[in-house]
């Protein structure tokens, strides 16, 4: 089984792709073709401008027919890009698609080398290896894995909401899991949205309630995914549902329990209002919360903490009986075929830049806090006021707080320029304060964004180009008394300025969620060095990950604004739906197998398999591999001390001949 095919002579067709100038510019393709033509078993050896084009593929099929080829090697780009294309071409030519081997001479050669002779030599070596290897290829059948049509969406921000609705509208079941008591995410906290200045609530709330009422969506708030097992099409996911001590189905959101709570006043920082207002231990996250039911904060509620409380809330709820202190944390297991991860971002902690005085000066606020201040449903009912209640006469906005800075985060958070300009306009709208924006560059790349910048300028908002050095209350001149002074080098004027203001708004950037690493391990995704989830291909697979059936959308993949998040969410939904509608996925047949006659039953391989695909058959006294469970890592193959395990597509002799091949030519 693991020896080479016995059916007659090997007739190899070799094709090297110019890829326009991408390869031909650095590799002498005809020379490689001539070199390969001399190797034993090679019947055809050609170079061609674009192998992936239709004529290129047709060329292969034609040669298979005319020259009775039974092995094909294509030297072009990365197999991760076009292996499938060419396998299909080979199959269309009437050969088993696995009589094919690809050579990566673009990403691994022409694009990374500068000496034509060296690059050509390397191409010859790699091609030689593939030609030696392909001799040993055998006909293989792909196995089909059926796809469970249900989809899990993790994260109930705008991205998660949009993805869930899109999938649900296609008639598939969706589980939407959100960590907080309500869906809505950061967008729910915003007042208006750039560049159109339409109110965030007005466009978000309908989608939120649509989620709640949608027959295909199971919404689990106050819940977290804790375990993911299985593989594409067949994921088994464990969700932890935290008790909110209120029966979601019975609660009507009348909030009488809140009024009745033994805490007469709100006492604890209100998360939704970014801590600018206080809430009780029993509360409703915000007016338009979905689900619109109260939740109890277990750290704060007397009854939960001590069991000693008058439980006035229960009285208030009366015969509705929605209060339920007997609720316990529960683990629910669900089966889904695809997963969309939309876990969003975390705001940069402005305290990490002490010279900007956040946490030291009461009137230094973050952009998100200002959002709540300008919001009519916010703590000040839309009044922009200082902590002492006065109205600010002057407001300074500092951009790139924590972004584009080697000391904190190097990346641009992409939304802060627009976000700050939006807030600047709102401040002008709500007050008569002067607004000065301190920026390094204004980045307004988007439909209607540059126009929005112009509008800001026209509305008399001051722009000072320079990285702010510090915020201080050290006054040098009378007009600075009682104000905060922004010290900055105005790089356009070319000198250091001191600008006194009443309020300072920090455009804190975006960061990966604190638990991003744990989350990505759970879903078997990769992370970029900065901690954002890594897409499979930045251009061609922007919402896919390296794990089939797991997609990403929104800011967990990188900073982006609402339009981009929604677009990505739609894309992720479409990817999941495509898989679900197809109903199955063809799996690479790279599984390992045990040659039963050869196995001595030493059991060395059994503990090595992370998927418990290897078991020991006591009756036969041999190990055996369950092909359905095997993921094809090949660890057991490398470990079998008597060489009795093979791996399709990666047989020992295939790799040995590859080694020989790459070394055969310097």
């Amino acid at each position, binding site marked *: 089984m693991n020896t080479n095919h016995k059916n007659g002579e090997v007739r190899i067709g070799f094709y090297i792709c110019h890829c326009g100038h991408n390869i031909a510019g650095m590799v002498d393709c005809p020379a490689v073709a001539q070199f390969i033509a001399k190797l034993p078993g090679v019947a055809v050896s050609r170079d061609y401008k674009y192998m992936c084009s239709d004529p290129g593929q047709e060329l292969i099929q034609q040669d298979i027919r005319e020259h009775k080829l039974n092995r094909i090697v294509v030297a072009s780009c990365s197999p991760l890009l076009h292996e499938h294309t060419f396998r299909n071409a080979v199959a269309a030519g009437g050969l088993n698609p696995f009589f094919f081997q690809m050579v990566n001479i673009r990403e691994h050669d022409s694009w990374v080398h500068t000496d034509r002779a060296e690059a050509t030599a390397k191409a010859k070596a790699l091609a030689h290896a593939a030609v030696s290897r392909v001799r040993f290829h055998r006909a293989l059948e792909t196995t089909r894995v059926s796809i469970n049509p249900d989809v899990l969406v993790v994260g109930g921000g705008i991205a998660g909401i949009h993805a869930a609705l899109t999938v649900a509208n296609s008639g598939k079941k969706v589980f939407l899991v959100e960590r907080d008591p309500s869906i809505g995410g950061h967008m729910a906290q915003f007042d208006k949205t750039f560049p159109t200045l339409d109110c965030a609530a007005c466009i978000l709330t309908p989608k939120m309630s649509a989620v709640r009422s949608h027959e295909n969506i199971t919404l689990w708030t106050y819940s977290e995914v804790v375990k993911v097992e299985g593989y594409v099409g067949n994921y088994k996911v464990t969700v932890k549902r935290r008790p909110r001590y209120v029966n979601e189905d019975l609660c009507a959101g009348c909030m009488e329990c809140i009024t009745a709570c033994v805490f007469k006043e709100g006492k604890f920082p209100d998360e939704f209002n970014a801590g600018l207002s206080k809430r009780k231990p029993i509360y409703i996250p915000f007016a338009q919360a979905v689900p619109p039911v109260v939740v109890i904060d277990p750290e704060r509620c007397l009854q939960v903490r001590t069991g000693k409380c008058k439980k006035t809330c229960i009285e208030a709820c009366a015969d509705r009986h929605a209060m339920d202190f007997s609720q316990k944390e529960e683990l629910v297991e669900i089966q889904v075929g695809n997963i969309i991860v939309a876990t969003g971002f975390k705001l940069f902690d402005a305290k990490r830049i*002490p*010279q900007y005085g956040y946490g*030291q000066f009461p009137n230094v606020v973050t952009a998100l806090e200002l959002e709540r201040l300008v919001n009519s449903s916010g703590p000040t009912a839309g009044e922009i006021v200082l902590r002492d209640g006065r109205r600010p006469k002057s407001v300074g906005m500092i951009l790139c707080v924590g972004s584009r800075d080697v000391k904190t985060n190097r990346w641009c958070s992409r939304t802060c320029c627009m976000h700050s300009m939006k807030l600047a306009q709102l401040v002008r709208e709500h007050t008569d304060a002067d607004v000065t924006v301190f920026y390094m560059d204004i980045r307004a790349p988007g439909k209607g964004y540059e126009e929005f910048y112009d509008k800001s300028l026209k509305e008399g908002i001051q722009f000072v180009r320079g990285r702010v050095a*510090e915020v*201080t*209350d*050290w*006054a*040098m001149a009378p007009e600075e008394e009682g104000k905060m002074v922004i010290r900055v080098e105005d790089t356009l004027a070319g000198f250091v300025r001191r600008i006194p203001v009443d309020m300072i708004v920090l455009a804190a950037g975006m960061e990966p969620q604190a638990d991003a690493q744990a989350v990505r391990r759970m879903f078997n995704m990769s992370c970029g060095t900065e901690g954002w989830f890594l897409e499979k291909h930045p251009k061609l697979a922007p919402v896919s990950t390296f794990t089939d059936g797991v997609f990403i959308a929104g800011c967990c993949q990188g900073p982006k604004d609402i339009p981009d998040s929604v677009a990505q969410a739609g894309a992720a939904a479409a990817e999941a739906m495509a898989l679900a509608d197809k109903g199955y996925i063809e799996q690479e047949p790279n599984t390992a197998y045990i040659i039963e006659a050869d196995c001595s039953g030493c059991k060395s391989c059994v503990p090595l398999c992370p998927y418990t695909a290897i078991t020991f058959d006591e009756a036969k006294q041999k190990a055996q591999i369950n092909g359905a469970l095997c993921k094809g890592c090949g660890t057991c193959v490398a470990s079998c001390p008597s060489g009795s395990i093979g791996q399709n597509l990666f047989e020992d002799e295939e790799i040995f001949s590859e080694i020989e091949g790459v070394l055969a030519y310097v």
Partner: protein
Amino acid sequence: MKYSYFPGCSLKGLGRSYEESLLPVMKHLGVELTELNDWNCCGATAYMSVDEGKAAVLAARNLAIAEQAGPEDLMTPCSACYLVLNKTKHNIADYPAINATVQRALGSARLAYRGSVKVRHPLDMLINDVGLDVIKEKVVRPLKGLKVAPYYGCQIVRPYATFDDAWNPTTMDRLLATLGAEVVHYPLKTKCCGGSLTGTVPEAGLRLTYILLKEAVRRGADVIATTCPLCQFNLDAYHDQINQRWGPARIATVYFTQLMGLAFGMPAEQLGLKRNFIPMKPLPAPLSKV
């Protein structure tokens, strides 16, 4: 509590009132300081900019001697010494080249430095080793009503913010509060005092000094407390010139250890307080008796 003690040149010269107050205060707190035997210049001042290698060797020699002297941490009150010794310690650890130069030089004197010495500032050690509660117990004459502007200077928290925040240090604030003084909010606590520019480029250096004094006065402080001999000198010595250039900004600048001494009930003259050009304002009772 035992420490090796590196006074540095200032504390034997211009800044001797720092040592005059530091030693009794430490003794009073039961802290044992053993002055390094045969210490030399820390390598600060012009040296660093002229020849970093030689400067490093100078500093390293002190570290080597301290290492020989024993396991105790090396306490050094002068900000410049504190920075240079720390800097050298870091450079020796981080740059093999510097380490090689240093060890070669030390070797010729049959010395070596293994990198084990911890360089500590009195503030660090008072807050973290002795503890404010212990200090509180020793306070017999709380500095009630004395408004103090805490001035740390640029060197002890930058670039190595080892025991306090680089932008808004608070150790001295907390210490002074423990002594009963009223600590005024002083946003310039780490700004430059003018350093050696006061001598070389007065119009630049003195302006910086003036800004510090002016802000302290504006904040209603009675006195500036500092940790650095050079700062103390700059803030104390140039009032006439400053007066001519920008008008009055008259306020005394003393070492935080001198204020500790007063709070511990020690007589002012024993604490070198009489050495100031600008004497501390007569203090509200009961201190005024002193």
